[in-house]
């Protein structure tokens, strides 16, 4: 199997505001191939979240090119980008963003209508995704009735329910104890073993060390890419 380039960044910059301008990204170039498992590390404020949002088409770069599956994102309409997000990208946010107004199952199924799934199919797939994160029996609960780790797993179930080719996770273990964090990373590894391309932002150096590839972001630049050092390997 020839791994193709799923994500490509070329001299991507992102500048916020004008007085004074904040250069969140200062020319980032790298490529992620299908099936890779990548950790993004770096200090707070270095531009990791900005990078992830741009990778996931939630934000547009100030300059440079972003390609997903070879397509230049800048050339795509809002509708087409939304379709890519609905079908090909799964997000896990640090703050979960679960809604208290509905059950865990409905939270997981929330994004499926945008991909055009029928109601019966949605319930089935949401239940299955909950099963994969070990929460099938909590499908009827409200998110507030769950522990922090369980909520993070619900957020992961929501990210993978649409069977996306790419999963982007922003500090999925940030609020968790190291044991729970490790189990979340294990879950992401399983997903990756199933063929998904996965990028994870983490502050935890020990966790990052177990990833096959690490991107080190500092002050809006990639200062270290473990893939660029072929001898180190996995």
């Amino acid at each position, binding site marked *: 199997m020839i791994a193709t380039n799923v994500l490509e960044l070329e001299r991507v910059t992102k500048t916020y505001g004008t007085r004074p301008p904040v250069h969140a990204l200062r020319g980032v170039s790298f490529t992620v191939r299908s099936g890779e498992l990548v950790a993004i590390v770096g200090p707070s404020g270095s531009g990791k979240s900005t990078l992830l949002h741009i990778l996931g088409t*939630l934000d547009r770069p100030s300059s440079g090119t972003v390609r997903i599956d070879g397509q230049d994102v800048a050339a795509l309409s809002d509708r087409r980008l939304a379709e890519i997000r609905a079908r090909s990208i799964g997000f896990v946010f640090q703050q979960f963003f679960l809604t208290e107004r509905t059950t865990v199952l409905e939270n997981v199924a929330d994004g499926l209508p*945008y991909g055009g799934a029928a109601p019966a199919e949605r319930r089935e797939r949401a239940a299955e995704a909950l099963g994969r994160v070990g929460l099938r029996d909590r499908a009827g609960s409200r998110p507030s009735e769950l522990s922090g780790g369980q909520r993070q797993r619900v957020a992961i179930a929501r990210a993978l329910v649409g069977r996306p080719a790419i999963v982007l996770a922003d500090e999925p273990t940030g609020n968790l104890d190291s044991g729970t964090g490790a189990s979340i990373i294990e879950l992401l590894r399983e997903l990756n073993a199933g063929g998904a391309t996965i990028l994870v932002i983490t502050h935890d150096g020990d966790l990052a060390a177990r990833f096959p590839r690490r991107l080190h972001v500092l002050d809006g630049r990639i200062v270290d890419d473990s893939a660029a050092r072929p001898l180190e390997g996995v």
Partner: protein
Amino acid sequence: MRLSDQLRVAGIGIRSRRLRAALSALGIAIGTAAIVAVLGLSASSQAGLLAQIDRLGTNLLTANTGESLTGGAAQLPTAAPQRISHLPDVEQVAHVAAIDDANVYRSPLIPAVNTNALKVRAASLDLPGVLGTGVAQGRWLNAATERQPVTVLGALAARRLGIDRVHPGERIWLKNQWFYVAGILKPATLSTDIDTSVLIGYPAAEHYLGYAAIERGEAVAGPPTTVYVRARTDKVDSVRDVLARTANPESPGDVDVSRPSDALTARAAAKGAFNSLFLGLGVVALVVGAVGVANIMIISVLERRSEIGLRRALGATRGHIRTQFLSEAVMLALLGGVTGVAAGALTTAVYAGGKGWAVVVPAEAWAGGIGAAIAIGAIAGLLPALRAARLSPTEALRTL
């Protein structure tokens, strides 16, 4: 995305904040309720009046003495009722003669100026039947009493004379003689002249009051001043066309022909004209309601920025977000509109039911109320929905 999903997603905001939704829909509910009730009540009262006119019959025509061409009061020939009754499509004819110089008092002691604006009229015996009225008390004139000093009072005349019951021996002072009161009529809606009349028989008018015409050297009872004609319902217009000529072939121009139900129908139409003050208040309430919905929607968009960001990350287009908030605003307004229409219709039903009118809520009232609510929701929700859609996903997600 399916329509059912769009609606479900749009309903989340309302379902999760029920009290707030109810309060913000209240203004629109009050506005539509006021408008529907005003339109419903005027339509119902009009329907009530029209039903009453229908019961009384729209086939009554009157022929009155008008002004003659020379300026003096014209007279109808004494033979006019007779001739009219021979017309093919005439079903019934009755007539009265207003007697000008006869005043009526409760007793001889009353000062002569206190006439109470009552009129003595000689009446043919079939008058109550033709007018669709009857006696409220006592009895109507008959072949015997129409020759005697006996009177039947119109409803208003009885009240003005202070006679509310017919006692045996009850009498009134009529042109310097006593007349016995035999009965009191019910209100005659089609001819209110009768209500203020003191009615006596034609022979009595001739004998006691000297009201007579001279024909071929002989005194005969009459002449009538008003002839009441019941025509076949489908032939009213053709009878009306020939009535003046038949009543007075020599000078038909002296005869005023009219159809009493026309005036009543005009009054019904005036009643159907709605109360514009309340209608105006309803419109004001609607405007206030619209502002309320717009306000709530703006707050809702601000509160739910992270939800917007999340939905965008999950694959919602700008269009989906716009539709979601626009539909939420329309639903909110519709909620108010439907409640308001129901409340307005209920008010109409209770009030009209109490008055015995038919309950009429015009289609333009309820359809207009609901349509206005939808339009208001769309207008009030447009700006917040556009704002929500314009939000970039990252911007929306950053708020916490």
